[in-house]
């Protein structure tokens, strides 16, 4: 049975099903517009740990445990864990795996990791290599700030185009059998670099990659934005979302049903400027707002596309531009 369509699109004939999902967020995210959809807030940023990195790891531990509980399976029944985070060497994920101790493949796709892990997981299930896989990612405002930007107490002014790294984690369990939302198609993104060098404008760096993946998917599947109830990007923020809409228009697609997790997660008065970002942004919104509403039947078929700015502080100082990437999965409720 063919599992490819065109150049970029993957088909999953067995339709891996999402049997468990869970989202954990920090205080600021909990105070935002999506509060009613999140499963848990951890409150204060340290979560009782001695470092921000350990706190982030704790977030992922909580989300993975929550997803396991919802799916009603034990961690021994997980064949592979696909996951990663923003920190150097993906330490938040590695530390979570110290106690979870499932077979593990680490991923780095910057903020695109949630979709990346879902694609890897769906391929694993559809290929018959696993019965259940766990896909998870996380980000923490404080651990990201100190690695990519400035110390927390540094008195700097953030530009309007900057985004706020979401403190949160989301975990999804994909299974061979069960009921729920299914992954039917996916598109693996390419690295696209449109020459953006501004570290405070990630939305602009990622929008061309999002456009590229979407256009490739529409061409392969011979569909248009109107064939889907919703197209939701990961963390383009308000600026990136406008740019993506404009880029899609230039390519002949009018996408009025476009949303963005980064634009949804904070309200304007929360001082997050252009919106939320980070792996935890798309992960927490997918594993709460999006999957819950798919299950409730508000939408039947959506495209979830997590976007990543593959930025490194080192290469940025060396004058390099920021490459972007976007991976897409099609989620369907039967």
């Amino acid at each position, binding site marked *: 049975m063919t599992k490819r369509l065109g150049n970029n699109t993957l088909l999953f004939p067995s339709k891996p099903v999402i049997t468990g999902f869970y989202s954990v967020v920090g205080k600021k995210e909990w105070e935002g517009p999506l509060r009613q959809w999140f499963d848990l807030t951890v409150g204060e940023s340290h979560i009782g740990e001695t470092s921000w990195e350990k706190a982030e790891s704790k977030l992922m531990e909580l989300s993975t445990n929550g997803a396991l509980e919802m799916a009603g399976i034990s961690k021994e029944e997980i064949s592979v864990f696909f996951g990663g985070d923003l920190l150097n060497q993906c330490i938040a994920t590695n530390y979570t795996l110290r106690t979870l101790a499932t077979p593990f493949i680490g991923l780095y796709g910057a903020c695109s990791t949630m979709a990346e892990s879902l694609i890897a997981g769906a391929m694993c299930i559809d290929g018959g290599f696993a019965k259940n896989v766990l896909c998870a990612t996380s980000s923490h405002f404080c651990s990201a700030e100190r690695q990519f930007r400035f*110390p927390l*107490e540094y*008195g700097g*002014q*953030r530009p309007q185009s900057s985004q706020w790294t979401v403190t949160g984690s989301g975990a999804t369990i994909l299974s061979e059998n069960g009921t729920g939302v299914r992954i039917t198609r996916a598109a693996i993104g390419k690295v696209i670099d*449109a020459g953006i060098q501004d570290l405070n404008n990630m939305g602009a760096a990622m929008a061309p990659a999002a*456009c*590229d993946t979407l256009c490739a998917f529409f061409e392969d599947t011979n569909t248009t934005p109107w064939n889907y109830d919703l197209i939701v990007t990961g963390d383009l923020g308000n*600026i990136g979302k406008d*740019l993506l809409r404009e880029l899609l228009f230039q390519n002949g697609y009018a996408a009025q049903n476009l949303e963005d997790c980064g634009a949804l997660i904070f309200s304007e008065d929360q001082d997050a400027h252009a919106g939320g970002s980070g792996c935890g942004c798309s992960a927490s919104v997918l594993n709460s707002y999006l999957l819950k509403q798919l299950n409730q039947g508000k939408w039947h078929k959506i495209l979830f596309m997590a976007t990543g700015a593959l930025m490194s502080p080192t290469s940025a100082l060396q004058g390099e531009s920021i490459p972007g990437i976007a991976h897409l999965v099609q989620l369907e409720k039967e």
Partner: protein
Amino acid sequence: MKKINQNEYQKMVSHLGKSPWITNVIWAFFVGGAICVIGQVIIDTAKNMGISQEDAGCIASISLIFLSGLFTGFGLFDKLAKRAGAGTLVPITGFANAVISPAMEFKTEGYVLGLGAKMFVIAGPVIVYGISSSILCGLIYFFMKGGM
């Protein structure tokens, strides 16, 4: 997707996400001005107590550095600086914050290679080029005066 022309894309991007510079300038003017007024009050008070102009200036700098450190420690400095921008950055308060904030942040990596090494990660360049340029100016001045 059509190939993106980088120059055209830059133009598209440059219109978006502009900073509200008028509000920023007003905030910077008043907060920066207020910090300078505090400094002047300290100098005048010290002089009234019979301290020389030079020593009074020193006391003002030390006091402002202390206050900046204290407010950084309490987690209040960044909240003010977020609005005040250059108003808190340009006076000596900004420099003190730039040293203290990494010291606080990197304490988790230990007192030597964390706090000690990372303390000057932001302020280091200011010290290096500040001292270098003052030496250069000193040398120019020295030779302009005709050497020894």
